[in-house]
């Protein structure tokens, strides 16, 4: 697993409860073309798992169900290691408080 700075940011965003691709893009301010391959790699290396959200929520919002990602214990360990290497901006945590799903609207 190569710890690029963007990878660390994505891990950090996941740890702070950003679960969907576009939300992670918002939180990290990275382009989508960077974030998605990182998510694929995290999933391939079993640092994150992915699943589909409950159909009920999707129906309620009249849209297709979204895919969400969660860190595995290994992913958390990697993040701890990555944090030691890169300084993670506080802004993500701050944005997490502002934008946490459910609290945003």
């Amino acid at each position: 697993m190569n710890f690029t700075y963007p990878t660390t940011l994505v891990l950090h965003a996941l740890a702070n409860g950003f679960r969907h691709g576009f939300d992670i893009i918002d939180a990290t301010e990275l382009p989508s073309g960077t974030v998605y391959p990182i998510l694929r790699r995290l999933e391939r290396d079993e640092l994150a798992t992915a699943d589909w959200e409950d159909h009920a929520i999707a129906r309620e919002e009249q849209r297709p169900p979204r895919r969400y990602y969660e860190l595995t214990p290994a992913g958390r360990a990697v993040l701890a290691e990555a944090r030691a290497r890169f300084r993670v901006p506080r802004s993500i945590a701050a944005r997490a408080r502002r934008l946490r799903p459910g609290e945003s609207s």
Partner: protein
Amino acid sequence: MMPRVPLRAALALVRVFAVLVPASRRAEWTAEWCAELEHRSRQLARRSDSTWSADVDLIRRALGALPDAAWLRRQFTLDADAVRDTVHGLRMLATTPGFTVSVLVVFAIGIGATTAILSLTDALLVRPLSLPDADRLMTIWQVNRETGQGRLDVAPANAIDLMQRVRSFQTLAIAENWSVKHTVPGGEPQQPLPAARVTETFFEVLGLPMLYGRGFAPDDYRPGANRTAVLSHRVWSDRFGADPSVVGRVAIFDEKVPYTILGVMPPGIELRLVERSRRPEPLVWLPRPAFDGAELNNRTQGYWNLIGRLAPGVTLHQAEAELAVLSANLAREHPKTNAAVAAEIVPLRAHLAGSLHALLPLFLGAAAILLAVACANVATLFLARGASRVREFAMRQALGASRGRLVRQMLTESLLLATLGGTLGLLLARGALDAVARLRPPDIALADRVPIDARSALIACGVTLLAALVAGLLPSLQLSRPAAARALREGRSSAGRRTHSTLVVLEVAAAFVLAIGAGLLTRSFVTLVHTDPGFQSDHVSVLQVFAYARQNTPEKRTLFFAELVDRMRALPGVVAAGAVSSMPFGEAKILSDRMPFTIVGRPTGTEPEPLINIVPVVGDYFRAMSIPLLKGRLFDGTDSPQSPAVALVSQGALRQFWPDADPIGATVRFQLLGRRYEARVVGVVGEVRHETLDRPARAELFLPHAQSGFGSMSVVVRSAPGSAVTIRMLKEQVWALDPALSIYSSGTLDQLVSKTLTGRRFNLLLLGGFAAATLLLATAGVFALVSFSTTQRLREFAVRMALGAQRSDIVRLVLIQAVALAMTGVAIGASVALQLTPMLRALLFGVTSNDPATFVAVGVALVAVAAAACYLPARRAISVDPSLVLRRDV
């Protein structure tokens, strides 16, 4: 409600990119992206802040799906298809070991030989030399216009005149072959080290900074200056412990003489200025004292070497023109000695490439033929395999494999084989280059440590791989569905048979051409080895002894050599012992140039004086060499310094100077080492070849050593077969008389003769190697074709056998095919070879370039080999059970 335009555009983009995503994940991937986009769009709508920038942001995020899709495709291709193709490819290759091994061998030979010869060419002709601006460095040699012999060492007076008069060189330097013994206090007596004495401009000409210390300066040449030396890198690391602090220290050379070490040369400098003496490269460089009187007048004995740097703006052509004029002037000024003397300029690079320089085009041609045959071979192997896999591919196509998938499969297999074969080929090239460095004749200095040239390897690998790809892909590309269906039904295909036969015929033709070249060289070599040199070289040992430094008067030297030869003769097992100044095939060339002489009583015209080689001999030289006495008597104990001067002449001299008269009783006048002789001819002895076996014998005039007191002699000892006389025992006899005398070189006469054949042996080995490799490939090609067509004709054979054909009839059918192919190939090859072999003329000896015996022998051998290649296929054809074959596939 209709989705907004930006959302529709974004979704469309994602769906386009989805094509890239591997099919197994495509649906899920599209759903994820669409859900995100829709969610985003809805969120924006809900917040009703759908500004222009938010729309742009949506499209930008959709564009990010492209790298995502590409990433997944790459993973998929790497993880899945390629791996699966590779595994499948390896499995397929393992199931057909015959094919796999053949292709690997062909790849290895084709790539290996081509890479090696191209790398060698690069090193010899292209790669910069380790000297600065080396393309301006030239070596200068003497040419004998009468005999056509070139690359001769330059006579001192000629060299001095050239140095003073020439304008087209910026600087010129002289190097003179020398040797010193390095004495370590308390150490063993050492073999002399090859050395060179050079003029003060020598290191300036090379333009080379020393590794440590400095080169010679004018002060080192002043009379009475301290003795100084420059060490080569090799002697510095071998004998001085590679210690930089040796600079400025004193080394003891030649027993007791102290030399201050001035500098150490950088590694890898080899100049091969000692061309003619075939000696190793000098290890120690010494300053040459000022020219003495003898040197200023010596125009007959060549033993100096000239190296120079062209003046700025002067071309090689201009320099050659100037030297031609200067040589003509010298010939006019000194008609007796210089009438036939010219000078020749050889660029240092060409000089270092030695005899290979002229031969490289030949070997490159051979390599090109070999590479072409390798390509043809790879192509036939792949064509045959493709044909035999038509069913496999048809089956896979019927099961839904796309043509792209099949092409990729073939590609993977070809690449696998090319990678493995290429690796083997590069190993082979390395081995071949190392062998070349080991076996090279000494004159090809640049052939040492040749690195594999990356471009050469790429060219060789690329060409072979291309052949494999074209031949491998053709069948899978041609396989359209109707054809596939037909193939499934019929189980065989006849396509490509003619291409295949044509390729094999061409392979045989190419093998024939190279085999003819190798055959002609072999015949020349055998003829040469069996050439009578005029003496018998078995059981003869030779020691070259320089006695000048220790025995300083002619009387002492006469006594010394007479006593030495007597001691040798007294050894048990010794049949005859003698000594001679210019040893046939000897390493140091002593008195090797002809000198003027006159026959008393014969009118001298205006033409230059006759020239002859004058040779002092001691004791039983002629018996030791088994040179026959043809007339008169040999020298004996009565020929002393006090008795009248006598001489013997060789048969060659007899033919040249007494064509229809009896030389015995004639009186000849000549000078040797400043002393005048008037000697009576008392006998005629057989003539001997001197430098190489392919040069005719020379005219010689012998005089007894007792009447000359010459100091540089080769002691020649013939021992009885089976006796235990060793070189060591002979050396001990020398040291018993004088423990400090240096023995310049020693060995058996067989070794000396054999050394002169190194160059021919090398050429033979190189061309023979190419011929053998090509022959192997062509044989493999015949074998592959016959096996392939036998397999395809099994039904035909079965029918014939069922109808009563005998096994011998079937074998004949198989043989006829192979022999017909081989004979066609030989016929084409012969017509090509007849055009090409005249290029070999310079390398041939005693055989013409269209030697019928060689052509017939090689042709018969090739047809026989082709017939032998049928052994396995023919056995297979007769060992099948007709009933089984006929029932199958019906």
